């Protein structure tokens, strides 16, 4: 087993465990933080396969933007009820054990990766930004266009489901309207 394979399997194990922890987390904030760990694990997996750029994207886009945004949303939604949440008391030691171990393993894995990079071990098949751009915008340009449509309807759907003014207007209409 090469060094990169070791990195891959450790990262994969961490990602799977963290994703499992997402499902069993007692409150939403913890779940999101586990998700963050899981995404870092996936990023390392990508890196060990030679997709350094994809790994960076994974961290910047998913961990950096989406999950943090998610965290903000949860914090904003729960702000009134925070006192009632017993779960949000400072965690006990055994509760801390899982995230700490996961994070430590991931850090060790990252250490191995850095060591491997310093020692010049590489998979010899790094996928560059150019290659990704070429594939996306030449071969899969229709897919990219369709993805933009997915984003558009995501936006429309969120707009529709989230518009409060419309909701009250509709309530009034419904009271005298349907039988």
């Amino acid at each position, binding site marked *: 087993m090469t060094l990169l394979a070791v990195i891959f399997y450790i990262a994969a194990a961490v990602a799977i465990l963290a994703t499992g922890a997402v499902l069993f987390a007692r409150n939403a904030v913890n779940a999101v933080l586990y998700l963050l760990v899981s995404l870092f694990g996936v990023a390392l997996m990508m890196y060990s*396969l*030679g997709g350094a750029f994809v790994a960076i994207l994974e961290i910047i886009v998913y961990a950096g933007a989406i999950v943090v945004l998610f965290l903000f949303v949860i914090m904003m939604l729960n702000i009134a009820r925070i006192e009632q949440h017993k779960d949000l008391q400072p965690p006990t030691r055994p509760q801390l054990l899982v995230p700490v171990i996961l994070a430590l393993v991931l850090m060790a894995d990252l250490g191995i990766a850095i060591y491997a990079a310093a020692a010049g071990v590489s*998979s*010899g*098949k*790094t*996928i*560059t930004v*150019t*290659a*990704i751009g*070429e*594939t996306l915008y*030449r*071969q*899969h*340009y*229709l*897919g990219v266009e*369709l*993805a933009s*449509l*997915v984003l*558009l*309807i*995501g936006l*429309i*759907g969120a*707009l*529709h*489901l989230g518009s409060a003014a*419309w*909701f009250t*207007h*509709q*309530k009034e*209409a*419904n009271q005298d*309207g*349907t*039988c």
Partner: protein
Amino acid sequence: MISGAPVTLSLEASVLETLRGFYALWPYLILVAGILLVLVVDWFQSSAKSQRVSWIALLACLGSAVSLTKLWPTVLDRPVLLGWNALVFDPFSVFFSLFFLVATFIVITTSRTSKELAGRRMGEYYALLLTATLSAAFLAASQNLVLLYLSFETLSLSSYVLAGYAKDRREGVESSLKYVLFGAVASGIMLYGLSLLYGMVGSLELRDVAKMASQPSLSFLLVMVLLMAGFAFKMSAVPFHFWAPDVYQGAPTPVTAYLSVVSKAAGFAVFLRFAAPMLGVPLFSQAVEEMPKELLFAFLSLLWILATLTMTFGNLVALRQTDIKRLLAYSSIAHAGYMLAAIVAHNQAAYEAVVFYFVAYAIANLGLFFAAQVIHADKGTFDIAGFRGLVHDSPVLAASIAVLLWSLIGLPPSAGFMGKFFLFVALVKQGIASSIASFYYVLVLIALANSVISLYYYIGIIRQMAFYEPSTMLPVCRPTFTARFGLATAAALIVAIQLYWQPLTDLSRAATGSKTPVRAVASYGLVNSTPPRNLAVGDQQ
């Protein structure tokens, strides 16, 4: 640059190649323009006049359909491949696109008069409807796993929002949520299958996938099972049917009609295309690969069991329904079962039969959901009690509903009968040719038995309409002239197809390509017929 890839084209030439293929994309670009226009114009309308934008949606459908009919002779001559084999426009996909557009057109017209949607902002609604149609058309045309999944997901996402469009209605929101949860699981399983498939094949193209089928492997069967989860979800086939009754009941009725016709047809279309080379049906450009006997039989058995379970379950549960939308939901599950049964026959006749059946099914289902909507508008209920004594309220309405139900049973004289007839003929044909004849004959018998079961609940509605006095508790149903005219047209079409089915059989034959041998495939957006190799881990710099 990726080595070994024939990307030798200059940027300019590559753009030109792409543009040249765009004439096949015109119909879809019109739809996209429609989506954007609907959204923008809706901003400038007051809530009360929001329904106006439906005209734009109708025009977009019409324009798209017209340009598709112009494309039809071209693709009949030779299919067009677009975007490095990502999309193929052959009669099959163009037929299904047209089918989706016509169905969407009807759904938009019924949405305009729907009381469930009255007083709402409709811009988003029509934009989502058109997006769903576009992605359904792409789903039927996709030749590439990425595009297949993307259009699958676009269709699902827009359907989720459409199902819960009336978000102040509890059941609407509930149904939408159920739909999302089921859809997420199904597409997750499917995505897992797709990634396994990519790992095995090393290519995203369906024709390479088909080549893989010729090598016997158990993991390939596993992939097929995983992918079936996604397809079965869209077809609402057992065991991925659980969402259907709740969503059909909770969604606004025009959306229900849309889901039962377009969404289901898209699921079947993509499955038919995906499975064609493996089942030995030469669907246009695809090469037929001999699947090893055992693997083919295993796959067919899977379909066999799925078909049997789907139709039996759908029909048995439908017997006990009292809500018309739920009843039609279970009936549509049963119909998915019949069509799956035809696919077991895995011959050209089966493909034609499914296409034919879908037209008959679509007319009946669109009509019946519209009838349910009309009755609900006056009586305020979707209960079958609302149908009681309908013949006294409006003879035309009652008679039309009776004809449509008759067609769903599959009794002559109706299009449904011809559809079922062709399905069974396909199975019997295969049975005669095959060494395991009983495998097919038993399926025919099960389907026949199921038709008899379905007789009971369909006739039950006709009986309610004809032989009972209208309930005095409910107001009288007074459908508008347009509603009666529309339903009578649907009923007339159903009978007309029975009397003169030749055009439709010709069309289904042309759509599945048994008449037109493919001389050449026009490919645009690619230099050699081989695309650049996919970005795999093994690619050297």
